[in-house]
């Protein structure tokens, strides 16, 4: 059987950066995109955020990666062509694509605007599209995407700082709404102050919450409060601080993807409190059942958000001047960026300046 040759499988040439194997090293990659279909939007990629998931995927840490792998699901750019049946977008529009590029469009989840929970949801990269070909993400010069999975980036948002909202933003916005943690005056905890956490603080503050950041790094306290607007900061390894804060939070969004104890977090919750995990540790966590029952508390999860909600999130961000704090890098810096990301050495998202720096050799 002849393997798909990425350069030849579609009619339109494309260029990007791909990982070739679980070393995760990214290198120039010639491939191709499908012709712009009737419902497709084609856009020139201007910027793409580096999500921590990209790092997990290039190294095959979840066991689901196929190579060559072009990561990137925080993609923004300008429309260059639209298919005949496209109604929402025109050439020149500022648009974005997040973590999904397809779904079944007919199940209950799709009908209810939560395509992200469709069992046949198609990931923006390392997924398999309806035509059987592998999807390639936004570390590339051009994207072709079904208009249903494209969002408009409001004019008020700068493209580069808006890019991370397409994954980090919706990943925090959606559970704040779904789990009812968006009411003014409630007290929300955010665990982890990285790409997800810092955006979470901004959204929660804009929704009127009192926000406490919970982190293992005391060094992040000043930034959390002075730069991101958190009301307070708890060092999770400090038993006294954690004890004093028990039973004070209505909800917690936990962005940490490493295995960690959740019992102390459950203890921070008030009765009827909710612990929501958006990072997914690969090993099971220990769930202490007594506190769950005695306080009628819940532990839930959340994964990005549906398309309607993603647009709503961007519009909300525009209204409240919320963007990610970013470090813009050139395409040739990407492997160094990945190494720094692994050590948490970034404030708080790398964004690749694709349009200006991604060039064929």
């Amino acid at each position, binding site marked *: 059987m002849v393997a798909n040759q990425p350069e030849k499988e579609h009619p339109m040439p494309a260029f990007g950066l791909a990982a070739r194997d679980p070393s995760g090293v990214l290198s120039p990659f010639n491939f191709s995109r499908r012709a712009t279909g009737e419902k497709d939007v084609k856009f020139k990629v201007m910027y793409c955020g580096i999500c921590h998931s990209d790092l997990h995927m290039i190294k095959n840490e979840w066991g689901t990666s196929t190579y060559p792998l072009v990561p990137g699901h925080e993609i923004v750019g300008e429309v260059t062509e639209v298919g005949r049946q496209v109604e929402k977008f025109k050439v020149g529009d500022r648009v974005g694509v997040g973590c999904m590029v397809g779904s079944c469009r007919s199940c209950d989840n799709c009908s209810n605007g939560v395509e992200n929970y469709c069992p046949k949801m198609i990931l923006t990269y390392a997924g398999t599209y309806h035509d059987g070909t592998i999807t390639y993400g936004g570390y590339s010069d051009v994207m072709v995407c079904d208009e249903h999975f494209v969002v408009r980036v409001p004019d008020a948002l700068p493209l580069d700082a808006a890019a991370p909202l397409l994954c980090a933003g919706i990943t925090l916005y959606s559970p704040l709404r779904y789990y009812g943690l968006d009411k003014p005056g409630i007290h929300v905890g955010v665990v982890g102050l990285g790409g997800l956490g810092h955006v979470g603080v901004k959204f929660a503050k804009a929704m009127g919450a009192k926000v406490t950041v919970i982190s293992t790094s005391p060094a992040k306290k000043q930034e959390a409060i002075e730069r991101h607007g958190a009301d307070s900061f708890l060092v999770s390894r400090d038993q006294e601080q954690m004890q004093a804060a028990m039973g004070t939070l209505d909800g917690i969004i936990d962005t940490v993807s490493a295995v960690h104890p959740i019992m102390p977090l459950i203890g921070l919750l008030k*009765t009827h409190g909710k612990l929501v995990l958006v*990072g*997914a540790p690969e090993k099971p966590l220990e*769930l202490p*059942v007594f506190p769950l*029952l005695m306080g009628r508390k819940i532990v839930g999860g959340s*994964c990005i958000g549906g398309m309607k909600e993603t647009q709503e999130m961007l519009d909300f961000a525009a209204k409240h001047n919320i963007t990610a704090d970013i470090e813009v890098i050139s395409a040739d810096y990407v492997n160094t960026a990945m190494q720094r990301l692994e050590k948490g050495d970034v404030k708080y998202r790398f964004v690749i300046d694709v349009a200006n720096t991604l060039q064929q050799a």
Partner: protein
Amino acid sequence: MAKSPETEHPQKAFGWAARDSSGVLSPFNFSRRENGDEDVTIKIHFCGICHSDLHAIKNEWGFAHYPMVPGHEIVGIVMKSGKNVEKFREGDRVGVGVMVGSCMSCDYCNQDLENYCPKMIFTYNSVYHDGTANYGGYSDMIVVDQHFVVRFPDTMPFDAGAPLLCAGVTVYSPMKYYGMTEPGKHLGIVGLGGLGHVAVKIAKAFGLKVTVISHSPGKETEAVDRLGADGFLVSSDPLKIKAAFGSMDYIIDTVSSVHALTPLLALLKPNGKLITLGLPDKPLELPMFPLVLGRKLVGGSDIGGMKETQEMLDFCAKHSITADVEVISMDQVNVAMARLAKSDVRYRFVIDVANSLSK
């Protein structure tokens, strides 16, 4: 010098108590407080044996105080009612469940959620407002604040209704709170014991489709033919479990031993809810991928408030729901506990206190 259980209060009482963590119950003379202005004194007719009683008498949760008179599924007749008691009079059929007190002033108490009051007082193995030990329903009489007494519906038999006071409200409350009452939705019930079998009946009364998940294949006929479940899955049958993946809107998990949550989470549809009611003595393993990828949640629930307990009893009376019980005499209680430890009961033992408790 502390007073003895027999002398610390003015009303003489008699029951059976565990003396230590062997859990063996034996006759016990003690006393109850004078019937206060807010109190009712109840002659106990029946008391259900809840699995929690077994955990408690053996100190499996680590906070036992002995001597311990268990029992929190108590039904009986009012003998005395205090000056300020308007809801009950002598001769009324009443019940007492898992709580006998709370602070009565916090937000939770004010919202009929006494069960979540930080100062909630359990019916037994606890300390009352006056600092004395509380003794439960394996005894001849009990004195309780009227707020924590419920009226027992006339149409409901005492013996078969007693277990509703814990088992009934323990499953009814989360069904309401977590929105598991939409007719036609699919509920999975894990464990077909005291809680599980009542959950099947209440769920069917709400119009739900019900699948029982159990490790005992022998329970299928009972579950489907007698209790009215629509389906039955043996938890150790991986093929059948896999075939049912993503089919349930909610699951109520009544199992109190440590067990795997992964297959249960897989049975849920996206946005599904797994509510756990059992109290294992060690933490459970919670896999995060299914929670995150499917926006599923695991929640807890603990009995129900007083208003809800009354509502549950009235609901059960209306739908002719009672527990399936094996009535025993008081002197058989240790044998019953040994059988309960092996889940050898269909599905609740109930002690015929009035007829069999004798000094």
